[in-house]
């Protein structure tokens, strides 16, 4: 990212420390992760130590320090989905994609993540791919969902 883009983000969110996480979220959304260079620029722009930004980037789940896949596959492991078999759905997705939860496929197409409660408990187990939510997923239906995005 360029200096001017960082400047714009800082301006947009109001320049004080309570805007830090919001600025990082915008960078994450734009770049798909938090590049070290962007954090260094931000550190200079907002006069916040780089160690603090690194701390934020590694503490909060919204952020990734490495690029994520084109499609984010999120399996809900909320309690209601868990008692309805969410773990089995996650395991099957892991097998289909060949990655563990948190990982990205080698072709950078899919990142597999878990999330605790999307609030769609009436249709659990639930899988969300990008903005689409799929309900009543069983582990033998998982490949159909993935095929929509391949």
């Amino acid at each position: 990212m360029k200096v001017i883009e960082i400047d714009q983000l800082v301006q947009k969110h109001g320049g004080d420390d309570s805007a830090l996480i919001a600025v990082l979220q915008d960078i994450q959304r734009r770049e798909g992760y938090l590049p070290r260079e962007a954090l260094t620029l931000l550190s200079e722009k907002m006069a916040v130590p780089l160690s603090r930004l690194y701390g934020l980037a590694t503490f909060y789940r919204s952020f990734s320090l490495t690029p994520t896949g084109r499609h984010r596959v999120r399996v809900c492991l909320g309690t209601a989905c868990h008692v309805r078999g969410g773990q089995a759905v996650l395991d099957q997705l892991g097998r289909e994609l060949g990655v563990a939860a948190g990982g990205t496929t080698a072709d950078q197409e899919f990142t597999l993540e878990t999330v605790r409660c999307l609030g769609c408990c009436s249709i659990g187990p639930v899988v969300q791919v990008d903005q689409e939510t799929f309900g009543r997923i069983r582990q033998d239906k998982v490949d159909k969902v993935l095929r929509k995005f391949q």
Partner: protein
Amino acid sequence: MSAPSPITSAKDLERWKEEGLRSLAPNTAKVSVGMATCGLATGAQAVFDVLTEELSKASSQAILAKTSCIGFCQMEPIVEVYRPGEPRVLYKEMTAEKARELAADILGGKVNKKEALCTLDGFPEAKAGKTISGIPRMEDLPFYQKQKKIVLNRCGRIFPDSLAEYIASGGYFTLWQVLNNRSPDQIIAEIDLSGLRGRGGAGFPTGRKWRFARDAQGDPKYIICNADEGDPGAYMDRSVLEGDPFAILEGMAIGAYAIGASQGFIYVRDEYPLAIEKLETAVAQARSHGLLGKNIMGKGLSFDLRLIRGGGAFVCGEETALIASLEGRPGEPRQRPPFPAEKGLWGKPTVINNVETWANVPWILSQGADSFRKLGTQTSKGSKVFSIVGKINNTGLIEVPMGLKLRDIIYDIGGGIPDDKKFKAIQTGGPSGGCIPEKLLDLPVDYESLTQAGAIMGSGGMIVMDEDTCMVDVARYFLDFLKEESCGKCSPCREGIDRALEILERICQGKGRTGDIETLESIGKMMKGFSLCALGTTAPNPVLSTIRYFRDEYEAHIRDHKCPAKVCRELIRYSISAKNCNGCGACVKPCPQEAISGAKKKVHTLDQSLCIKCGMCYEVCKFDAIERE
């Protein structure tokens, strides 16, 4: 009426109210589709698109609108049809095809009784007192019968983006009355008298918290709405934010007036994009019309707020961690005292309250503390929103008076356990809560009763579990969750959860040892006393409550290496029943280990040495030929 123009008189409010009534109860047919997150997840967009298409074809005057979640999530997508002078009809489980038929019915003036869920009456217009034979009234449906809606009253009934509809259903009249006629001290006294207790889980008396903040030294003072709803299975706050966002804004403005704050924040969980969108729309309108910002309603109160998205950390639901997050730091809790009401954000007096707490404020001040006190029990006044999910027939969100029995919630409202399975436990309070067994189902739902039983009220999530749920696995599940979410600052929580999880995983793998239960109890006891924040002090609750009520299951795992509920993978065994297997081969391909083999139409065999107990064969077999023991 969308050009910026401040609302500064009773007459202004009346004009808005009339516009809102015309919108809610027009003189033509109106169709509202429930399009909150649960509706959208089940296909409400397709329903809406079909209705748009069909209703615009004929030259009908029918209006199509969007609404939010009406609480009966099991029945989503839900569509409401309004006809002037007729009871409103709610249709359930809509699909694109059914929507096409519904459109034809609407244009033809027909009511489809088969697809109808219920009729509703009297909101916000006066009750017409009419019914339609063959369709139950909403208040007669078991799901709704025992509910008392305060916070959820407008959800699913109005278009959440519409300020006019909010005002028409009573909104902002309270703020007007408060700013004109009541002093901050009177407000605090009324909230105190009502007995309102924090709805986020801690249950601290709200009036008392406001009093501390009002009396504290420091300027500016801050108001925060904690919308970082993180308990898995709880989505009450999300529904309120998606369905009735103005209620939060009005509640917070009243709070700001009461304690003398000029700045506020709504801290919303990052995973709630629709809630954030609805709040942004509401805030923009509130600002345009003088309901937020300088000189609110022309009465001198200046209060504005910022919407902040959480970074993805359950611990930020804890108030001091939330404050740290607002200060641009990792969400590490801080030692209390001092409490936030005294020294909170940036060291200034800060009131943090949960979404549901704020949503109760306008109602209490408009209907009076006594009306609130009439509901509930001696120590827990008012109503509470709960989510009932899991192994229950009627999944959804309910609002009931405190003190209702758990049994009533599960069987009357919830419709009991699906598939004729046996009830086992109800888990309340999320990862800070506990599991309540069958023998305690006559407990009233209030703060003290649930705490004494080893659970907590928490934010209101209620997960129903049946005979197929393993209670040791449930304890393991919650610790697994908490291990991910612990901030790691204090050693009791960080090390304690890690070691307790280690023990539970061993137990679930059949490697439990004598003394494990006692060690879990010691770790739990220490964590309850020594941890820095409520995440750590309540983390032992799921383990301790399951040991208390389901010790036999722990012992079966440890002593007998058996999982009675047949959940823990290393302790179960799948095999093919020679009696039932007809050799269809449906289980062969899905098996990730290629462990099943057999000739067509002949009994197949499962190679145990390859089996990883994933259960795929069990799920695909249509002939009950896979046995699990």
